[in-house]
């Protein structure tokens, strides 16, 4: 293609993107088609990849195709393996795609589709994709070192310590929130609980098949497992309609929470590979398949968004979670725009597979753009619902009341029409007893997804199957995040405690395994229990806390990246990471301030504690429960404060280093691996 033809193509892409974003942003008072969001996203990511990432690759990072990567220099056939770039891309995408980009946008849809969509697009192109790209490249240049190691080497010991605490915090809070989402999705749902329970014998069967009958045939085993899961979904329908069976699976939230805590402990402390490894494969298989199906469903159906561009709840009075659009939309949607957790993956397995430095652009920037597209699809799934239905599902009983009539009257009074009989019909259509008070985002996403799928294949007759397929998909891979995260957290605690007393660091010493598993499960289990017992549904308190801790980790990653860029002598380009860093600091500091000190009890932890204390003093509420809630509020405030102090510490340490380097008072020392020319240079040139 000639140069002028290429220019015309890119002009068309830019014009289409601008038109789509303008349509999304300007339309008020009438519904728009979801394809505007899809086109805006595709054009934004394409332009960002073609121009912005190329600029970063050439000017800021100076990617060098002739420099041997650790996969080449340290190749051992195990961790370090030169791998085709598309394969690494798929591997990296599968590792970064989790429940976050699905849940966050669904919750943020209470502000309307506009704030979330704009943040997802801009956050990914200028923040998330950049973070993943630069951290991946810097890890490649340091033999695949982890983020915490790079923070220690490049920023300082304090940076390393903050990164370590940030990782532990995010793991604990993430696991607590993830478990709460599963509990809220499965409570009083015999169909969903039966299906998820059946994945345990299915995974065990897969384990035996994989180990004894067809060693190593994981894909084949996963396909078989998937077919069995489909059978289990059908079986769930039978179980829910058979009271003698269904009664054992219609569990309350506290009972489910206890099961999940026991499961998490067992997954961490016991050698249950026969269950966990096949479940991990099954979950990945279902995850990738479902994301692909959702994309095809949206393209085939081209649904209309019923949610307005902006709702009245941008003022902070929303029922799903309290807090105004700034800063809460930006901590609620983390993974679809920028996620600190990705920096762990980008400095974990992926850098050890990269064959050429130049491929970090496609893998790091490109995979995050794909993940961001998943978040756009989740926004669409939430916004195709009638707003009244969306709020009826996502509003906690503490806000809209326990009774369907009271809830629908309250939601209708906000201007989002819905009736108790509408909700009853919808619950019947998806095979549930009720859809009220299903906070957490997963059920709303499942209803939206079932809506899209059933309009594409099977009509209303398959609505219940699609709904439970979506619930199974979310619960399955959240449980995988839970057991993998618990083990990773346990290893991290063991590594740290090993410095205090050596035997505690021995990963094969059983007392150490039990103690450390109990510590990590106890930590996230406490947050889960707190959420289950919270009259406001738990998500109101815990999701912002998760968002803040995730953005804290992104702040650490961007501090490390900015430090390295300045040390490389490219301070004039430091804005590439400094701008998203500044934005994240503004967002996390503001959100933390509001969560701790806001006088509105629905937003501020301390105000809520004061309100409860006042009510208890006047004898309006029973005191043991109130005392626990007050303690929880103060604990959440303390955790938020600790996280924000951590941000301040690493910022101060990093910024003082930048100033000293730029002023020439400190010699910049890069801890990169020495340059070694690739043996495949001729192959590269050919």
């Amino acid at each position, binding site marked *: 293609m000639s140069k002028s033809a290429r220019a015309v193509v890119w002009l068309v892409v830019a014009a289409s993107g601008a038109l789509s974003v303008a349509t999304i942003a300007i339309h008020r008072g009438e519904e728009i088609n979801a394809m505007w969001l899809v086109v805006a996203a595709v054009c934004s990511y394409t332009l960002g990849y073609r121009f912005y990432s190329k600029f970063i690759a050439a000017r800021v990072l100076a990617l060098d195709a002739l420099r041997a990567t650790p996969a080449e220099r340290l190749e051992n056939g195990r961790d370090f393996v030169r791998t085709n770039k598309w394969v690494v891309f798929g591997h990296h995408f599968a590792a970064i795609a989790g429940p976050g980009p699905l849940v966050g946008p669904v919750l943020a849809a209470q502000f309307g589709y506009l704030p979330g969509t704009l943040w997802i697009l801009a956050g990914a192109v200028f923040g998330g994709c950049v973070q993943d790209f630069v951290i991946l490249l810097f890890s490649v240049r340091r033999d695949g070192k982890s983020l915490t190691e790079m923070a220690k080497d490049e920023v300082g010991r304090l940076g390393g310590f903050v990164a370590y605490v940030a990782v532990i915090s995010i793991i604990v809070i993430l696991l607590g929130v993830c478990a709460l989402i599963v509990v809220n999705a499965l409570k009083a749902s015999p169909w969903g609980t039966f299906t998820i329970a059946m994945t345990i014998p299915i995974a065990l069967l897969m384990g035996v098949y994989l180990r004894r009958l067809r060693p190593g045939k994981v894909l084949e085993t996963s396909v078989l497992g998937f077919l069995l899961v489909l059978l289990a979904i059908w079986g769930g329908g039978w179980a829910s309609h058979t009271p003698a069976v269904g009664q054992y699976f219609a569990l309350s939230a506290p009972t489910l929470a206890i099961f999940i805590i026991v499961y998490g402990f067992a997954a961490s402390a016991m050698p249950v590979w026969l269950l966990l490894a096949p479940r991990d494969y099954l979950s990945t298989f279902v995850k990738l398949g479902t994301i692909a199906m959702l994309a095809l469903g949206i393209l085939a159906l081209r649904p209309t968004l019923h949610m307005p561009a902006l709702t009245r709840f941008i003022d902070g009075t929303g029922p799903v979670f309290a807090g105004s659009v700034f800063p809460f939309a930006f901590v609620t949607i983390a993974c679809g725009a920028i996620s600190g957790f990705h920096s762990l993956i980008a400095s974990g397995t992926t850098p050890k597979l990269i064959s050429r430095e130049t491929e970090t652009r496609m893998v790091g920037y490109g995979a995050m753009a794909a993940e961001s597209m998943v978040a756009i699809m989740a926004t669409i799934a939430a916004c195709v619902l009638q707003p009244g239905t969306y709020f009826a599902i996502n509003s906690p009983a503490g806000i809209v009341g326990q009774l369907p009539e009271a809830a629908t009257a309250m939601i209708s009074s906000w201007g989002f029409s819905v009736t108790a009989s509408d909700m009853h019909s919808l619950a019947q259509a998806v095979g549930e007893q009720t859809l009220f008070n299903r906070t957490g985002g997963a059920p709303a996403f499942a209803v939206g997804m079932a809506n899209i799928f059933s309009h594409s294949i099977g009509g209303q007759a398959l609505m219940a199957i699609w709904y439970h397929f979506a619930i199974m998909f979310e619960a399955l891979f959240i449980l995988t995040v839970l057991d993998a995260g618990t083990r*990773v957290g346990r290893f991290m605690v063991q590594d740290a405690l090993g410095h205090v007393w050596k035997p505690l660091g021995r990963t094969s010493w059983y007392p150490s395994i039990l103690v450390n598993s109990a510590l990590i499960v106890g930590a996230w289990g406490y947050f889960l229990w707190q959420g289950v017992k919270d009259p406001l549904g738990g998500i109101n308190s815990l999701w912002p806390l998760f968002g803040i801790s995730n953005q804290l980790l992104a702040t650490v990653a961007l501090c490390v990246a900015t430090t390295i860029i300045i040390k490389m002598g490219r301070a004039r380009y430091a804005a590439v990471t400094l701008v998203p860093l500044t934005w994240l600091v503004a967002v996390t500091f503001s959100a933390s301030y509001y969560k701790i000190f806001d006088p509105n009890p629905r937003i501020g932890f301390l105000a809520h504690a004061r309100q409860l204390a006042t009510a208890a003093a006047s004898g309006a509420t029973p005191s043991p429960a109130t005392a626990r809630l007050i303690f929880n509020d103060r604990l959440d405030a303390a955790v938020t404060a600790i996280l924000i102090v951590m941000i301040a510490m690493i910022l101060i340490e990093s910024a003082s280093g930048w100033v000293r380097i730029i002023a020439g008072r400190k010699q910049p020392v890069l801890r990169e691996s020495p340059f070694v020319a690739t043996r495949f240079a001729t192959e590269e040139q050919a």
Partner: protein
Amino acid sequence: MMQSLFSFGTHFQHAWSVLHSVLREIFDESAYARFLERRQVVTSPRAYAEFLDETQAQRERRPRCC
């Protein structure tokens, strides 16, 4: 016409082989193949058990993103 069909077929075949390679890597089939090649053994329940033991520590420390 035939040429464009042939070209489409070649592209499709290439895309499929890339997708298959991606899935084999994600699902550790490639890692197992490398293990068999490195150890110079053929696949068997015992070889697979050894592969699982060898990669256990690496798999256990692999985080799953949120």
